[in-house]
């Protein structure tokens, strides 16, 4: 079995597109595309909202509401939205399927980003916030120069969990006729071509791992060492324990 999955993955024919068949590269591109669009919209919506709610302490019901939305069954919502939305689009556009898919993915990505941005700001020690105001920072300056940099570890961890979920769930785009790596899973299942199905799943997992690694790298440079406690001398806990600590906070 492992051999045939590897065989499917390593066959260069499967990676190239032909006039009749879309190859792995193209589907990978589509998958990354769905993911990026969903994450970009989710970040634009949830990050500012989470930061402002954390800063002002007002509207925290929004965070709870967003978390409650997590309980919605994704496929069910997708099918419902397709039924409602796709009749409004005719012809050669696939917007009738793309819009429902992105809505579903954004709904998945918003809660972790929102609640972590909120928690990150709330977790800034009160005496630090007090000092920031006491030094004469305005409210937006306190948020941008003090609360945001200190909330970054939690914001990143929220973003990373949103990203993993979106990459995994973007496979359902194929369920409503779109492309993406899910194509191999659904086609493999339908054709009882199990190497193709498992190969598709392996590709999704690999994409998730590599993306997470890339973001972890960005995080390493974006977060101040004073916050991540990654010091050259060993005066603080090392980065591995720091990651565990972050997860606990959440």
């Amino acid at each position: 079995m492992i051999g045939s999955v590897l065989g499917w993955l390593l066959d260069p024919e499967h990676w190239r597109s032909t006039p009749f068949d879309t190859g792995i590269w193209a589907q990978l591109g589509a998958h990354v595309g769905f993911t990026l669009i969903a994450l970009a919209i989710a970040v634009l919506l949830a990050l500012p909202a989470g930061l402002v709610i954390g800063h002002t302490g007002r509207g925290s019901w929004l965070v709870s509401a967003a978390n409650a939305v997590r309980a919605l069954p994704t496929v069910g919502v997708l099918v419902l939205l397709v039924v409602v939305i796709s009749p409004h689009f005719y012809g050669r556009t696939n917007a009738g399927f793309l819009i429902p898919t992105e809505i579903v993915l954004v709904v998945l990505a918003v809660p972790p980003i929102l609640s972590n941005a909120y928690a990150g700001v709330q977790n800034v020690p009160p005496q630090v916030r007090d000092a920031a105001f006491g030094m004469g920072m305005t409210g937006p300056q306190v948020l941008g120069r003090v609360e945001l940099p200190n909330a970054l570890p939690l914001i990143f961890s929220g973003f990373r969990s949103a990203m993993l979920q979106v990459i995994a769930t973007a496979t359902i785009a194929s369920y409503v006729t779109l492309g993406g790596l899910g194509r191999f899973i659904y086609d493999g299942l339908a054709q009882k071509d199990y190497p193709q199905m498992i190969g598709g799943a392996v590709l999704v997992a690999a994409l998730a791992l590599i993306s997470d690694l890339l973001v972890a790298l960005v995080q390493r440079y974006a977060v101040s060492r004073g916050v991540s406690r990654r010091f050259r001398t060993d005066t603080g806990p090392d980065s591995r324990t720091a990651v565990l600590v972050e997860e606990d906070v959440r």
Partner: protein
Amino acid sequence: MIRFDAATKRYPDGTVAVDQLTLEAPSGAITVLVGPSGCGKTTSLRMVNRMIEPTSGTVWLDDTDTASLPAHELRRRIGYVIQNAGLFPHRTVLDNVATVPLLLGEDRRRARASALELVERVGLDPALAKRYPAQLSGGQQQRVGVARALAADPPVMLMDEPFSAVDPVVREQLQDEFLRLQGELGKTIVFVTHDIDEAIKLGDQVAVLRVGGTLAQLATPAELLARPIDAFVAGFVGRDRGYRALAFAHGRNLPVREEPTVAVGSSHPGSAAGLAGWILAVDAERRPQGWLPTADELDETVTDSRLHRGGTLATQGGALRSALDACLSSPSGRGVVVDDDGRLLGSVTAREVLELIEERER
């Protein structure tokens, strides 16, 4: 000059934190607000930079009504030091110190250069400038907190229990350096503490507040010890008031007598003959090291481990309290007096110090 004019803070639930406080903190002096918890001392302090807005009354900063400026502009003119320092964890020591100059629009390079000077000025190793707060001890963080408050050279500083979170030894160092720094800078300081000893040590004037936020007594430390206005203040100022007041009485003319010595490391302290009980051991610079029992074998080398180190040192011109303490703590009964460089001048006895105390006008 900071002037509270009937400043009052009443919370919506009816609690009165500060009640009609009228108080003037003169320019260039340290005014300490002290009192038990719930006396509104921190609330009063925070009304100056409007971290808390007074419900009624006015707080004046020189001739400016503090309510007439936008809060953030007011705060940039006032140095602010808080308990546990409240340093920004994501910024290096240097950037923490440069905070207010940067807010005021100074360019980064210049702000950092002057921040580095300040880091040294508050007694920190400049090598720490690149570190983050989490890499510093509590005492070091507190020094950075003071440097940060000083960075824009504000004429006025507010200090909210800045030294209460560090251990007693470090606290005393920080207090001494704070007084040295204030000697150089002459800021107008309002300092909050719950520790009456700290208030007495640091204050040019001390305001004792009582629970409910009213002023019980405003006086110099010596006056507060000598003449507490009522039972509450007397109780709060505490025991040993007479003895503690000696800290403000100076013995400029201690009748110092010459004291025979042996050198640490020498083998034959011959001059010890005839002295009862103890002989003072000094190092090569004539700094007192401890007392050697004369009953010991005199031809043995005088080593550190044989010395009795219980005695404290008094300085010529210092407070009578430390002169008396030097006598009381010395095993020989002779209090050791040194000059400003720590070199031996001689000794006095408790009886002589007491005579000075009795002579001084009450």
